[in-house]
């Protein structure tokens, strides 16, 4: 009997030992032994089937082919779950060697947590590359230590005003340039039984990122927003911000949005607009890629692109788009030696002049001085590509707010769309941001 116990006990111990042995082995991911000389991991969100995702995945495959001595373990994670996945591995201190990041608070946290290291040496090695980025592109990844941590491979422009040319023509309307014209156009379309603006706000960032950020900046001006984010002499309960929320409420009260906008997702809204059910849609540059993948050439030619109308009484500039440098690749602070060399090379290959051109020609915006061939891209993209060179950029709300405050304004805008009170929304946003700044 005793033998029994002892042998089973031993067996269990062995099992546990085997398990823990395994764990310590796998957490050491940059295991340089093996058939390849060095192995690096890269995580990104180019998981879809759109042209840009395929282009970037192709570049990673090409890198692997060109460097047989390096083993590249790439993982493509769908966009919707990407932030969560990265935050979870960051919490477990198991970040991959190279990973895609977004500008703003997402990257700030990695910097503050000492989880990333600068790529400044890479930029110094290729000065002509560094100097070809558009003004301000690299600033987004420059931190207080004077080092640059990433080079953007995308531009995010989140608030284009797309419009259906035919519907505007049929109703003898001009694309609105000012808020008053905007409200008039909305009324006319409502009278004709056409949805004025399509929006899919089920995932609640949409109204904030595409519409409200642009409106609010026109009302408050950028400086006020930056101060309010820092809680430095400005607060989200200031009358000026209540006024900005009021403009959004005007849209809701004028029935600018289709019924049940909070229950359908962004893609469904894009389809709804592309099918000609709605006259306008305020959405980001990603809409171009998804429409290009699903709509016909004719449909794309029928869509025009502009900016959110000016608000003449506001403190902010007109002719701006919310956005700026988009994602870039970060280098984990744990990657050292040969793996670091390989990882830097991979980052360069994915963001150098050639890569930027390939990305731009796959119908997506970049922050790099590059000429594109109009034949290679779709007409809607080319129109937008020209437009973004004439506008100025203003901050996107949720890229600057803390995560909790971003959630507060997202939910708050849904509340306003359901008839909620603007001051209560402002108060919740202020509480969330003040709390985040205190920490």
């Amino acid at each position, binding site marked *: 009997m005793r033998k029994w116990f002892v042998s089973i006990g031993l067996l269990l111990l062995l099992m546990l030992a085997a398990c823990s042995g395994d764990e310590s082995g796998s957490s050491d991911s940059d295991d340089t032994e093996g058939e390849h000389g060095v192995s690096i991991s890269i995580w990104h969100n180019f998981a879809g089937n759109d042209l840009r995702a395929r282009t970037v995945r192709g570049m990673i495959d090409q890198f692997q082919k060109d460097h047989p001595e390096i083993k590249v373990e790439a993982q493509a994670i769908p966009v919707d779950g990407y932030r969560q996945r990265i935050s979870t591995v960051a919490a477990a201190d198991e970040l991959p060697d190279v990973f895609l990041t977004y500008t703003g608070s997402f990257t700030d946290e990695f910097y503050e947590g000492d989880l990333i290291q600068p790529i400044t040496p890479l930029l110094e090695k290729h000065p002509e590359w560094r100097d070809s980025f558009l003004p301000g592109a690299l600033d987004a990844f420059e931190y207080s230590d004077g080092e640059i941590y990433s080079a953007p491979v995308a531009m995010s422009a989140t608030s284009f005003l797309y419009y259906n040319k035919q519907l505007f023509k049929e109703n003898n309307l001009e694309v609105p340039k000012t808020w008053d014209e905007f409200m008039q156009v909305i009324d006319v379309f409502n009278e004709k039984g056409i949805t004025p603006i399509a929006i899919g706000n089920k995932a609640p960032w949409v109204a904030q990122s595409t519409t409200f950020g642009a409106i609010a900046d026109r009302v408050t001006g950028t400086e006020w927003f930056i101060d309010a984010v820092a809680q430095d002499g400005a607060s989200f309960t200031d009358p000026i911000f209540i006024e900005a929320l009021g403009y959004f409420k005007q849209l809701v009260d004028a029935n600018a949005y289709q019924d049940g906008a909070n229950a359908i997702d962004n893609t469904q809204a894009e389809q709804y607009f592309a099918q000609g059910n709605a006259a306008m849609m305020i959405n980001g540059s990603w809409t171009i890629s998804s429409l290009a993948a699903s709509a016909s050439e004719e449909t794309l030619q029928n869509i025009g692109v502009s900016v959110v109308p000016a608000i003449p009484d506001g403190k902010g500039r007109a002719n701006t788009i919310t956005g700026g440098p988009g994602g870039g690749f970060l280098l984990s602070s744990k990657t050292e030696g040969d793996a670091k060399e390989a990882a830097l090379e991979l980052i360069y290959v994915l963001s150098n002049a050639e890569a930027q051109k390939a990305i731009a020609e796959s119908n997506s915006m970049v922050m790099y001085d590059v000429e594109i061939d109009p034949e290679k891209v779709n007409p809607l993209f080319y129109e937008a590509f020209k437009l973004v060179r004439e506008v100025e950029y203003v901050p996107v709300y949720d890229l600057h707010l803390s*995560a909790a405050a971003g959630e507060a304004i997202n939910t708050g805008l849904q509340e306003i769309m359901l008839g909620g009170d603007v001051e209560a929304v402002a108060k919740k946003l202020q509480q969330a941001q003040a709390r985040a700044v205190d920490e």
Partner: protein
Amino acid sequence: MQSVLKVKGMLAVTLLPALLLYSFFVIIPIFWSAYYGFFEWSGVGDASFIGWANYLEVIKDPIFWRALKNNMIIVGASVFGQVPIALGLALMLRKSSLFQRFVRSAIFLPMVISTVVVGLIWGYIYHPQFGIINSLLTAVGLESWTRPWLADPSINMYAVAIPIIWNYIGPYLIIFIAALQNIPSELDDAAKIDGADGFKKLIHVTLPMMWKTIMVAVVLCISGSLKAFDQVFVMTGGGPAQSTELLATYMYNNTFMVYRYGYGSAVSTMIIIVSLILIVISQLLMKRRDQEGRGI
């Protein structure tokens, strides 16, 4: 005596691996999670100890109570929807003709579909512009009844409860059919001789014989609906404006969208406490029923 001890020892030894795994992956994490609830932690960087603040905030947060209320709606819809419907269907489908087997499979089908697919399908059924419900209502002239089912906070909780009911009728149906088939046929004959027929027989013979099975189904229902997450997460994500927030989506959003891991842990500990309370209450109710049953 010796042999009894031996058997017990053997039992303990054979249960040990399972027990170890269970405590390692279930019991210990519960306590860890309760412990994490005492920290403010964004997932990156250092966690700071803040005592009971997270738990107090959970209790003070109206959204938590709304989530609890919504969860109770799901529990209610499941207990008073799934169980009676499954029972009624079981009574109708107890025989095994081809037609009845077909209907049985049709009812069981949603159970084998991924819950994400169920959520997506019902999302389209409820779609405010193209959804089949609104199209049907318009087609029969009831245009005034059309509404954004998932976006209107006054009804969307009931709208999301329907797919959940639909999704899980299958297993209860199977359990009830098995219970029905276990009722000895002598009882049927005896009831017939005593003149109990149809409804009378159902009330006085069939249901009492199935009572224990029904109670088990109710407990399964309660624990299942407290865990409800996937269909609602896919259909509404807890929105709009947190109107369909459930305990699980509330926990998920706080942990993984707002990055407050400590607060999320505190919420999940509260979920465990709420679940335990509900299970204890239902157990007590069951025991009382049991004793009453014996008294007769």
